């Protein structure tokens, strides 16, 4: 065995770093989905009648829908009756101080590097940690309260801010939008709610970590962000999940409403368990993310680094309704081994002089398949609009796939749309150059990939960017060959 092979074997044998299981007593309802399940979840969360009605409507709509099959994915049949739709830590869900939190849980968060503790607060991160389905802890509330910023779990928001929920929930992603959005609307367990009042700049980056824990539990997070006139917020989302053999379903919905002159920056680092190298296990990540720039001069920016999940089906989209509004999408999607990803964005230009930018960097390794799918629609009234899209794909092995499916649809004569895409492998001379400088092949590839993804990574908040770079490195390990 050559030195290189040995190294390769060593690295490929490396198990998923975040794959550990926390032993906490969980309250899980029996598997299966009926109207009673929906009623149970709603009752469990002490929801008002109108919320239950909304869930039931969504459930009935879901029953009539079919799972979409247009994506470039091979999804094994999912038995929706074999999933448990609710789990909550049995320990009481609210704490006065951090000492009361189950130490086991804290250790889990620590190993994941979640900045939940005091010193992390100084780093400027407020965290609403979602452990499975119930929000366990929210820090920083005081600082945020002073500014009138609401940052809480969506269940709390249903209770405390029913008017906002009634007005915005389902306004960007209606429950009829798609199969998974309907499912989510029916059974969503929890998630985050953010409201930024007019003229307020959130002084901290709001962040939520999700973590899937109980075996066979599907997670259905619901996030709603409202940025009122002239406000600004940067929201971070990051996820890791423990190693499981059984596939776990995640169907989240994120809705963002951006008012006049407001700006929202939504960043994601997604590192859920991708399954082992033979494609066993791993998370199914079927997410609907959409924002709307309601007012003039508003801006919504999506940044995502996707390295995890066995199957990813995700298209963070922006509806540019206000005149002069701006939409951005920056994405790095890395797939390795047997992973499949079909991800991209939709930019729907409705207002005049709207602008959008799409930068997508796909990296395929192993036997994985990585697809970019995007739509740029410029409506008849969206005069003077502009879009620039760049979708690059990098192939690292001869058994992986990289696919680009852009849709461009323009209905006026004063707009300009430009799309370009390239697909190639890393040039041998680049690797040769780096090896000649004393780097081994794996380091060389990692360096090149990081450089390739730089345009996107630099859009991330600083500590996230560092984490993302590390993630790319880890995810690429063992893909040389």
């Amino acid at each position, binding site marked *: 065995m050559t030195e290189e092979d040995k190294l390769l074997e060593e690295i490929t044998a490396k198990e998923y770093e975040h794959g550990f299981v926390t032993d906490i007593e969980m309250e899980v309802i029996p598997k299966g989905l009926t109207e009673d399940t929906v009623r149970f979840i709603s009752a469990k969360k002490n929801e008002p009648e109108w919320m239950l009605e909304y869930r039931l409507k969504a459930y009935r709509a879901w029953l009539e829908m079919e799972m979409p099959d247009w994506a470039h994915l091979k999804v094994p049949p999912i038995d929706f009756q074999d999933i448990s739709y609710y789990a909550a830590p049995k320990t009481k869900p609210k704490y006065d101080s951090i000492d009361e939190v189950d130490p086991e849980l804290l250790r889990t968060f620590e190993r994941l590097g979640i900045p939940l503790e005091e010193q992390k607060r100084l780093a400027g991160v407020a965290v609403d940690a979602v452990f499975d389905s119930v929000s366990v802890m929210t820090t920083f509330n005081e600082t945020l309260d002073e500014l009138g910023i609401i940052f809480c779990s969506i269940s709390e928001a249903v209770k405390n801010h029913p008017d906002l929920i009634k007005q915005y929930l389902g306004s960007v992603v209606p429950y009829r939008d798609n199969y998974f959005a309907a499912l989510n609307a029916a059974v969503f367990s929890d998630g985050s709610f953010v409201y930024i009042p007019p003229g307020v700049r959130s002084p901290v980056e709001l962040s939520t970590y999700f973590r899937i824990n109980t075996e066979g539990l599907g997670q259905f997070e619901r996030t709603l962000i409202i940025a009122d006139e002239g406000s600004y917020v940067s929201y971070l989302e990051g996820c890791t999940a423990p190693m499981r053999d059984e596939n776990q379903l995640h169907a989240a919905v994120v809705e963002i409403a951006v008012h006049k002159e407001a700006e929202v920056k939504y960043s994601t680092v997604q590192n859920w368990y991708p399954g082992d190298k033979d494609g066993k296990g791993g998370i199914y990540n079927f997410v609907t993310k959409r924002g709307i720039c309601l007012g003039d001069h508003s801006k919504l920016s999506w940044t995502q680094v996707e390295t995890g999940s066995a199957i990813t089906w995700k298209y963070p989209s922006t509806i540019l309704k206000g005149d002069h509004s701006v939409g951005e999408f920056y994405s790095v999607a890395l797939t390795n081994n047997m992973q499949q990803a079909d991800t991209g964005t939709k930019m729907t230009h409705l207002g005049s002089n709207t602008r959008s930018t799409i930068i997508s960097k796909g990296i395929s390794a192993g036997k994985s398949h990585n697809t970019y799918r995007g739509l740029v629609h410029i409506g008849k009234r969206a005069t003077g609009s502009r879009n620039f899209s760049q979708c690059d794909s990098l192939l690292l092995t001869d058994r992986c796939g*990289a696919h680009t499916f852009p849709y461009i649809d323009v209905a006026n004569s004063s707009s*300009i749309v430009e799309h370009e895409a390239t697909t190639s492998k890393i040039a041998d001379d680049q690797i040769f150059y780096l090896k000649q400088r004393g780097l081994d092949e794996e380091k060389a590839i990692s360096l090149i990939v990081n450089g390739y993804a730089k345009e996107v990574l630099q859009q991330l908040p600083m500590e996230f960017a560092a984490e993302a770079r590390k993630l790319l490195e880890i995810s690429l390990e063992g893909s040389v060959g």
Partner: protein
Amino acid sequence: MNRSTDKFLTLFQEAEAHLEQLLPLGQRRLKARATFEHVGFPMQKMEKWRNSHLRTIRETDWVFERTQPAVDKTQWPERFRHAPVFVNGVAESDDFWEERTDGVQIGSLRAALKHTPQRVFDHFNKNNKEDLFGTFALNTLLVTDGLWVYVPKGIRVETPVLAVQYSSGKHHAVNHLRHILVVEEAASVDVQMLQISTPDDNHFIQDITECFVADRGIIRRHVLQQFQGETICFSTAFSTQGEASEYHSNVTTLSSHNTRNEQHTRFDKPDGVARLGGLYLAAEKERVEHQVFIDHAVPDCESHEKFAGVLSGHAQGAFTGHILVREDAQKTNAFQASNNMVLSDDARVRSLPFLEIYADDVKCSHGATVGKLDDEALFYLRSRGIGAEEAKRILLTSFAAATLEDVEDENYKQFVVDEIQSKLAAVSQ
């Protein structure tokens, strides 16, 4: 089964005897009927048919016409006035057949079936993908005639082969044609076809061209479309390529009502080159669509696509390109460009440049643009004393003519540029 499928099956039943008399295909038609029944006529909701306009086809009671009208050539460009004509799907001359001493055969499919049936059936339907879309099976079902060109090994046909596909009539008739172009090893041919209809025409035409390019062979195929009535035309070319062969295709649509052009290219052996170009000038309520599918099934091949559209009025244009690079098709180079110019707020353009890649040592790229005339360029020309209309026409002509760069026949190129210019003069006003 959808309504269109039903309708065409009934139509076939009524016309079967007559069709067989025109072009005896026997079992092939019956097999196609089974396939058509199974696959069905395409429906709007199908991914590759979303941008097509199928309502008229669905809602019209199509007939099969047994008589041929007199041909009116006054509207034709001079270049094609003496070329052999297919009138409503059947060659004007009953025995359009020429067999040269070097073995080159040029004629109608009907004549070829009489003179060289074995060779015809060695190629007929070999490239057609009957089970992909119902339209392809329907073509076999209703085909009446077409152009047959055969070039034996080592022969290079110097003068271009010209033909006209003409349709005229207001009784909602169907014309289905099958053109077959066969080029043996190291042989070459240049085929130039005018597809034209009269202002009162409302036929549904479907022509399929099957191209077979053997090792080191070259086929150059040029189509100029000038539909004037309410003609619906689905025009498809299938090509397969041998080692180090070349296939060139250029389709220019000057005017249309509802046109869908398709190109399916497959490389069977390494070192092949395909150059595909297309231009659509669509005004008023015209609809033009291009679908291109390139199958890089083997390594070391190269494909270039250059498509452009100029849309005005309420016109709708669409380009769907799909490059498939299969596993092990290493060292593939594939380039795809789709550029569009929108001149009116009521026009609409869609561009879907797809890449599906399963091999790593490849260079694939695509670029798609939708835009308007460059104000700076207009200003530059006007500052040189050129009038607004003229400046616009110059810019549009150069934009459109870029799709003809790969056309080798200078005469044809100049002829098409002239046609484009006179059409643009009308559009840009």
